């Protein structure tokens, strides 16, 4: 009896302890010495706990300009450079080589020089080349007539001094049935100095160095060849997209005149896109992907990760070529763009124990993209890591699988980590439901940092961009790097000359223009999406948690969308401008991610600003234009060192970041946009055969049968575009649940099952429930 009572009491104690223990907020990371110090990291936590990394040292290349199609031979990097002389209007190509072992890396001419001027009757253009064992070079050149009609392929063999040894027309040898001209996409030289070419899709050819055709092989089972390489046993390998899907690697068999499946890559590189195959100093084989370098077992196809580019402070988007320098040493040629003013550097990566690397505080960055982000994101990470002595950003990619539900799994994993308090310190905001996270206090309000930091100021950034990234509670959760302006445009005679229109006015215009194609390739559902995406917040009072879809404006929007066709025909020929030009299409959806796209819109409307109106999306406020932002970084409220996180976030939107960036997208930083405009507004001219000065188009856009030349903007263009941006509304944070409900119920109306009012009533009921939940 006594024992029973004791056991009962013991059980009660255990249960009570469970309750009390669960109430206690214990936990936290221990530092190296066991103390719980926020922000301090340990050696073991560097580089994801690896034992070795490849530490890089960088050397600038004393060259600016176009650099492409490189090959490594011995310790030299050979590449084709290009330069256009505006005064003489002659484009010159030069083959360069640079000694990678030199203290200062500067290219020297390697013998080949071609030039083509506007007045030449024929032009020679070097597409590809290969370096032979004796240092001579075989170049694949394209010869074209002035009007571009006659195109020929030639193989030209030159010695190290640039003297031509032989030249052969191989146009007939590389001809493919049904194709007018075979574009050669890749060229390599074998150990026996044979030249192997492929067109990236159909065929592989083998020539000797004099240009005599030796063998051909058809490319089968694989398409969109990404890389051509030779492994240590001489096998020529192509990687690309398999016809049944997924990455494939094929070997070329000239005996059977066909490619054959080579290996199924397994292990660390399984399923990844292979960008390059290279051979090490001791005949190892390596494969390069967007994220990493892997060693390949050429018998089994097993791959093992050797290094990650970000660990070595290399932005993979910038890599032009990778080579094996020595045992446990790799070299990387990098360029920060493809323009005439691109800068280059060479990185030498040496295997180093993590214990010998400087210990920095880790800032984790969570991203949904496979390779840590786009070009600007990678550059931001790499530049920050190189410059900072105290901090280091390490990427945690959440999208680690492929397939239909990969995205959903990534979101679930991310949410679970955030709630468990183990989420990354900095978050890639491009795919987050930031409204939900800010409403739960899970993201840091950047307003405080923006107001206190002496290096940046609120006024430096476009107000509408900051508005777009501010939650309904007033939390500024991210400042994106760039943004896009969305609006609708129409001929003044159709839509009037005032920017902005109400829903009633829009409905009247659409009714008046029945019979016209309202918008290119836009059916009812797309029209509703377009109208609502930028507008549904006017039907929702987020602060009070109420909605009002039971009104005329909303039913009018449904009715406007219902005026569009139920379905649009498939059209392979993309030509949204055609209908505008011949006045059979009413509205053009202008998606302006740069100044040039504003100029394109103007060009579509006859290049005359007085003839068209940027009418905007129907609504009740402003000029109807909307700002859409993508990307940017948010800071996790659970981050241990928020100040360090801000330093990284700031580096992404600082003036230096924009200087290093090659994007032409509209920067969120006003001064960066001003600098962009300054460059854009510089006119380029040339003197024609009549001695008259003609302006050179900066850019050309092709749409269907139309080509639009874009010239540098005038001050009026700039003022009009700035006015559009300054008066645009910040775009609402797209809520997929709300939009899903509207789309579902509107579908019943579009199918003729319900009236617009009935559909609106159901939408009102369901969305009000949704809003009540989130109250």
């Amino acid at each position, binding site marked *: 009896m006594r024992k029973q009572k004791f056991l009962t009491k013991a059980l009660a104690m255990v*249960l009570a302890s*469970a*309750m009390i223990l*669960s*109430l206690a*907020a214990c936990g936290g990371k221990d530092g190296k010495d066991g103390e719980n110090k926020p922000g301090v990291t340990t050696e073991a936590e560097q580089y994801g706990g690896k034992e070795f990394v490849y530490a890089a040292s960088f050397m600038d290349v004393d060259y600016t300009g176009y650099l492409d199609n490189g090959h490594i031979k011995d310790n030299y990097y050979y590449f084709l450079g290009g330069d256009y002389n505006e005064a003489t209007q002659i484009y010159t190509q030069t083959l360069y080589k640079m000694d990678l072992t030199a203290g200062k890396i500067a290219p020297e001419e390697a013998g080949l020089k071609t030039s083509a001027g506007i007045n030449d009757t024929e032009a020679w253009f070097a597409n590809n080349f290969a370096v032979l064992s004796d240092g001579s070079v075989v170049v694949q050149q394209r010869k074209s007539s002035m009007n571009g009609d006659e195109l020929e392929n030639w193989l030209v063999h030159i010695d190290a001094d640039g003297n031509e040894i032989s030249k052969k027309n191989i146009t007939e040898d590389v001809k493919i049935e049904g194709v007018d001209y075979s574009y050669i996409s890749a060229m390599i030289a074998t150990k026996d100095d044979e030249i192997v070419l492929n067109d990236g899709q159909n065929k592989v050819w083998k020539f000797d160095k004099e240009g005599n055709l030796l063998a051909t092989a058809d490319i089968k089972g694989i398409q969109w060849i990404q890389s051509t390489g030779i492994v240590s046993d001489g096998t020529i390998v192509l990687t690309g997209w398999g016809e049944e899907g997924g990455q494939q690697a094929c070997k070329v068999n000239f005996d059977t005149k066909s490619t054959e499946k080579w290996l199924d890559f397994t292990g660390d590189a399984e399923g990844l896109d292979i960008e390059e195959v290279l051979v090490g100093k001791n005949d190892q084989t390596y494969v390069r992907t967007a994220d990493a370098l892997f060693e390949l077992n050429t018998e089994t196809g097993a791959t093992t990760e050797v290094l990650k580019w970000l660990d070595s402070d290399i932005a993979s988007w910038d890599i032009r070529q990778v080579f094996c320098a020595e045992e446990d040493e790799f070299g990387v040629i990098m360029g920060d763009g493809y323009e005439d003013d691109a800068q280059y550097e060479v990185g030498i990566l040496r295997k180093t124990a993590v214990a010998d690397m400087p210990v920095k505080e880790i800032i984790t960055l969570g991203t949904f993209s496979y390779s840590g982000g786009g070009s600007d994101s990678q550059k931001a990470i790499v530049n920050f890591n190189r410059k900072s002595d105290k901090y280091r950003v390490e990427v945690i990619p959440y999208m680690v699988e492929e397939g239909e539900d990969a995205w959903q799994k990534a979101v679930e994993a991310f*949410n679970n980590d*955030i*709630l*468990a*308090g183990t989420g990354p310190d900095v978050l890639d905001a491009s795919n987050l439901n930031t409204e*939900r996270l800010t409403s*739960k*206090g*899970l993201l840091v309000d950047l307003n405080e940092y923006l107001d206190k930091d002496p290096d940046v100021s609120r006024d430096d950034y476009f107000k509408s961009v900051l508005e777009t990234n501010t939650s309904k509670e007033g939390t500024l959760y991210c400042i994106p790097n760039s943004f896009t302006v969305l609006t609708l445009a129409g001929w003044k005679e159709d839509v009037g000359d005032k920017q902005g229109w109400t829903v009633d006015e829009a409905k009247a215009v659409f009714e008046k223009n029945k019979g016209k194609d309202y918008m290119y390739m836009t059916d009812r559902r797309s029209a509703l999406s377009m109208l609502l995406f930028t507008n549904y917040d006017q039907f929702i009072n987020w602060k009070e*948690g109420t909605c009002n879809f039971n009104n005329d404006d909303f039913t009018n929007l449904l009715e406007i969308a219902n005026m569009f066709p139920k379905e649009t025909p498939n059209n392979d020929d993309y030509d949204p401008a055609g209908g505008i030009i011949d006045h059979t299409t009413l509205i053009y959806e202008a998606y302006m991610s740069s100044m040039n796209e504003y100029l394109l819109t103007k060009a579509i409307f006859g290049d005359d600003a007085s003839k068209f109106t940027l009418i905007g999306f129907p609504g009740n406020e402003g000029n109807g234009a909307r700002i859409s932002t993508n990307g940017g970084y948010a800071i996790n*409220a*659970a981050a241990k060192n928020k100040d360090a996180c801000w330093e990284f976030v700031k580096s992404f939107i600082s003036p230096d970041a924009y200087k290093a960036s090659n994007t032409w997208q509209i920067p969120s930083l006003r001064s960066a946009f001003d600098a962009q405009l300054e460059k854009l507004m510089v006119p380029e001219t040339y003197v024609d055969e009549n001695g008259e000065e003609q302006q050179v188009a900066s850019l050309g856009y092709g749409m269907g049968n139309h080509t639009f030349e874009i010239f540098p903007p005038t001050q009026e263009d700039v003022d009009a575009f700035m006015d559009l941006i300054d008066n645009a509304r910040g775009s609402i944070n797209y809520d997929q*649940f709300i939009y899903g*409900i509207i789309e579902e*119920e509107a579908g*019943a109306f579009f199918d003729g*099952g*319900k009236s617009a009012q*009935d559909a609106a009533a*159901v939408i009102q*009921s*369901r*969305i*009000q*429930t*949704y809003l*009540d*939940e*989130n*109250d």
Partner: protein
Amino acid sequence: MRTTKQLTGKATKFTKKSKRSSRWFLTPSFLGVFLFFVLPFFVVIYYSMVNNPIAHEFVFLDNFARVARNGAFQRAVRNTAVFSAISVPLAVVLSLLLAVVLNQRLPFHSQFRTAFLSPMMVPVASIVLIWQVLFHYNGAVNDIIVNMGGDKIDWLKSDKAIFVIVILFLWKNLGYNMIMFMAALGNLPTDLIEVAELESANRWQIFVHIKLRYMSSTILFVTIMSLISSFKVFREVYLLTEDHPVENIYLLQHFMNNMFGNLDYQKLSSAAIYMSLAMIVIIGVLFAIENHFGKDVEE
């Protein structure tokens, strides 16, 4: 057979040893129940009393107050109560009637029994498909109505949706309840019924005063099971109308499911505790009623 302890009043060495060893055998089960039932229960209570899982600030009953004030929760409670108030009594009464009828040994009674039981075996997703075909705006039921001269009804997206769900619930659950009642009817003491017949009691009197009294525990069981099933009807409603149906079929489990999806574990936990308390009260009341009416039967 009485144990040694019951005979002598003392526990023998053997019984003491067997009790000790039985505790060890029970430990894994106890640990499992503790880990997967008891501990999560306390975790739910913990979550309901903190502001968020990151800050862990104790806010006592603030979350409960917030949930009680929440319009969606109030709507869900109201709808769930209405649904249960309609469907549970109907499920009990109709299944009892069916059991009584089928107990009469009518022709083809076993085929009828099979027909009523078969909905239990059909997977929920298949049932939902059938219901969508029947009650869709362009479905079979509306076709019949239109042919009879009426107007189409938006069954699933109007105030008529509650009827669709009630019919679905009854169709799914009548069979099981009917079997329970048929078993209970088969176990009634025939001698008492014969005596009552001899005493000139009519069938209604026999049914109410003898059969129902003897079936009180079964009625209690069926009522509780029907009540629990009425909460589980969320599955069918979710498949028919997804996360945010029209107002009158927005149930408590919709609210909790959506709170889970929104990562609002505080509201979810508080709502779950409210629901648990309500269930405890209801079941307690039911037990009390059964105790009152079934007391003499047990004696």
